[in-house]
Each structure stands twice: as structure tokens, then as C-alpha cells.
């Protein structure tokens, strides 16, 4: 069990084999856990989309068909904030800044749109990507639930 972080009220940790059927399972599990914060349909969809992108990157790019594990941690914080990390021990990203550019993709054999990081960045409030070649990648993102409805 990891050390609790400041303001933490609940935590979920998942370890999933990096196989494509787990894309849907990962986002459904995260959405179910985040339901405690009573997000609206758009917020929930944003979170599902961001998780789906991060897990798909892990499967398609980090392990690229090799066996591997995708580690997902979801922490609910005071202030209705959800913090999600998606980590792998895969190949790593050579140039994170370039990988985060819209439409960037390392290949088009799967008709990839190159919009994965752009989706994560736009659908969540914060996105941090840390990567080391040959070691793996950590995607850390957070979103405040209810933020878009403040002032209504």
C-alpha cells in the first residue's frame, strides 16, 4: 500500500495485462470508482476517454504487442479532484514534447489519429508525462469535478 497523499479520501489500484480488451475494462473501472464524486455525463466521459487513451498508448506503443502490465492508480482528493496515473514498464518515449503534439504518431498501420495526448490534455485539467527510454512511461492527470459547472 502506497503512502497516502495529502487530501486523499479514497484510492483504487489496478494491474491489467496490456491487451486491448482491457481498454474498455480499465475505463469502466475508473469511471465506476469516480462516480463517488458525482460527475456529470460529460465529466465522466472525459475521464473515460483520457484513461482509454493512456491505456491504449501503453498497449500499442509501450509494449507494442509484447506481454506487459499496465498499472493504473486513481486517487480521489478533497475538493472533488480525481488524480489518475497510468504507468508502464515499456519502451519509453524518445521525445515526449513531440509525442504530445497533435497528430503526431509513430506509424499509420492502425490508422492512428495521433490525437491521444491531445485528448488527455483537453479532457483533463492537468497532464504530466514522464518517460525514460527502455524503462517506461508515467502519465499523470487530474480533473476537478464540478469545475465546469461552477458559477451556474
Amino acid at each position: 500500500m502506497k503512502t497516502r497523499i495529502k487530501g486523499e479520501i479514497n484510492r483504487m489500484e489496478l494491474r491489467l495485462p496490456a491487451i486491448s480488451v482491457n481498454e474498455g475494462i480499465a475505463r469502466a473501472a475508473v469511471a465506476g470508482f469516480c462516480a463517488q464524486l458525482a460527475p456529470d455525463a460529460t465529466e465522466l466521459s472525459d475521464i473515460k476517454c483520457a484513461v482509454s487513451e493512456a491505456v491504449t498508448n501503453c498497449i500499442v506503443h509501450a509494449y507494442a504487442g509484447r506481454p506487459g502490465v499496465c498499472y493504473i492508480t486513481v486517487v480521489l482528493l478533497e475538493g472533488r479532484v480525481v488524480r489518475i496515473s497510468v504507468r508502464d514498464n515499456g519502451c519509453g518515449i524518445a521525445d515526449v514534447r513531440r509525442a504530445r503534439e497533435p497528430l503526431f504518431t509513430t506509424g499509420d498501420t492502425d490508422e492512428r489519429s495521433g490525437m491521444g495526448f491531445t485528448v488527455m490534455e483537453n479532457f483533463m485539467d492537468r497532464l504530466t508525462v514522464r518517460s525514460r527510454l527502455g524503462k517506461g512511461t508515467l502519465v499523470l492527470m487530474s480533473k476537478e469535478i464540478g469545475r465546469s459547472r461552477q458559477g451556474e
Partner: protein
Amino acid sequence: MIRTEYRYEMQKKDRLLVVRLFGEIDHHSAAGLRAELDGLLLKERPVRLVLDLSHIEFMDSAGLGLLLGRLRLMRELGGVMVLKSPNPRVLKILTLAGMERFMEIDGLKGAEK
């Protein structure tokens, strides 16, 4: 139980082809859907393809790739492609990617109001 990957229904009238998609479009489901749709398009060779997204509950950027690939094929076949009735969540990712610059999205103006 592993969820159903995808499902679709089609209607054909002359060279208009309407394909109604169901479920979720992600990297997992896109590969099978891509093969099915391409088989359908190469067989039917429609002049106008309408992809009805009203029953798509979720779509991520793998769906964008799928749509752009089918648009490319329709252009090669000399036809056009239209997206019909995406829900507001699906519309959000379509407009984030600027898909309205490449294809007609039915319901876009109404959703923006």
C-alpha cells in the same frame, strides 16, 4: 464476460448506404469494425455513406482514425461520407479533432447552440 466488440445495422437505397453503429469505438473494437466496413464499402460502392453514430456510447481517438480511414476510402470510391447524430460526448472529440473540416456532421449546429 468480455463485452461485445461492435455491432452495426445497414440500410441501402440505390447508392445511398446508411450504417448504424452500436456500442463503443476504441482501439480494441476499431480493427474489426474497419475490416467489416471496408468489405461493405467495396461491395456496395455507395455514392453517399451515412454513418449513424446515435447509438455510439463512447468513442476515443481510435474512432477518429477509423472515421478518417473510411473517409479516405469513400473519396477513393468517388463518394462522400456523412456522420449522423453523434451524442454530445462523441461530438466533443469529433470537434476537438476538427473533423467537421473534412466531413459533414449532421446535428453539429444544433449541438453547438
